């Protein structure tokens, strides 16, 4: 269960979103929509704990959150297997054998990540989510540079593995994932009108 109350966030000292209230039950996904710059990434980073909200609270089971950014964090000098094993070690999990099928990575297992295409790298980055075994996922544009088939694979993973086992996902995306049961939250009404002038003098630091 993820619960967000009276949430307000800011980006480099400027308020971007405020008055956010939503909750996501175990096994559900929430899709964030809104034009570029509305604060989707900032919201996800704040939920994941990378920065503090300027007001409000966000509660979910402790030690269950995980964040996936635009960037994959894949090390090009390591093989696909080594990359995933590293995240497994960090989170104290073994790499599940099924992961190679979930993300169609079996053939790439021993390739150096530096030799992969952008879409293949993205799939490795998403496979990380299957390795770390966290219940509450904050996904920022997870389908960037994926082809239609891979998007389907990813949706399948989310539905059959993650959500089916009681996981929660908050996803910022511009495309249709085919995750029809997921609720959608349009962030536009929560945007804070920015007058440009704030009390903060951070801009001058």
């Amino acid at each position, binding site marked *: 269960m993820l619960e967000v109350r009276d949430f307000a966030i800011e980006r480099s000292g400027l308020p971007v979103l405020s008055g956010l209230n939503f909750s996501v039950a175990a096994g559900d996904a929430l899709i964030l929509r809104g034009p570029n710059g509305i604060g989707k990434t900032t919201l996800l980073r704040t939920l*994941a*704990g*990378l*920065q503090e909200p300027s007001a409000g609270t966000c509660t979910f089971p402790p*030690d269950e*959150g*995980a*964040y*996936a*950014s*635009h*960037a*994959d*964090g*894949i*090390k*090009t*000098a*390591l093989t696909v297997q*080594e990359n995933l094993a*590293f*995240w497994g*070690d*960090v*989170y*104290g999990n073994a790499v599940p054998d099924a992961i190679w099928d979930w993300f169609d990575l079996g053939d790439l297992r021993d390739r150096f990540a530096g030799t992969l295409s952008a879409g293949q790298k993205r799939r490795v980055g998403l496979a*990380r989510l299957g390795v*770390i075994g966290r219940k509450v996922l904050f996904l920022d544009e997870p389908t960037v540079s994926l082809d239609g088939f891979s998007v389907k694979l990813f949706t399948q993973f989310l539905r059959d593995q993650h959500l089916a086992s009681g996981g929660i996902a908050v996803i910022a995306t511009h495309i249709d994932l085919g995750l029809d049961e997921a609720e959608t939250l349009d962030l536009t009404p929560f945007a804070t009108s920015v007058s440009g002038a704030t009390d903060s003098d951070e801009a001058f630091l």
Partner: protein
Amino acid sequence: MIALLLRDLRLATRAGGGFGLGLVFFLIVVVLVPFGVGPETEILSKIAAGILWVAALLAALLSLDRIFALDFEDGALTLIATAPIPLEAVGLAKAIAHWLTTGLALTVAAPVLGVLLQLPSGAYGFVALTLLLGTPALSMIGTFGAALTVGIRRGGLLLSLLVLPLYIPTLIFGAEAVRRGAQGLDATTPLLMLGGITAGAFAMLPFATAAVLRINLR
């Protein structure tokens, strides 16, 4: 933390990892000095300890900006920051990995290269000992500096300017211990100070590193 350390060591030894860069730089500086100063044995043997220390310090500096910058660029640092490893442990693991790939190699190479600089015979052991005691501090202070400049484009130069002044105490006591040792004097005090600086750096700087990383990742 062990996983991160092992990953960094593996990355350092892979192609493009930069392992050995610092060592080769050290070798070249030490080889260049006799060309610049001239072959007089007396002058060389007087300045040998200082040259070895300054060269080791510059070699350690060379690979500092890779500590966090590479992980920052490919997004791994954000993911590590949200992973169940405290950022203090991340800083510590990074510093240890940096020391194992540069400081340790410099410690082993320095007495060998001392031959080129006519290092006095009594000083070989002291060069190795002071570098062993002092280079961990260089790595830890450097890791803190790297955390300060993470996210700044072309932060390498700024990093050098920030870190070099902080290296001064280590350099003073390291070189002083070798000088005293070479002359047969008692070197206990500078050695203790050197060890103290290293111990202090490892006691405090992981926390400072974590704090600046948190701010820079915001």
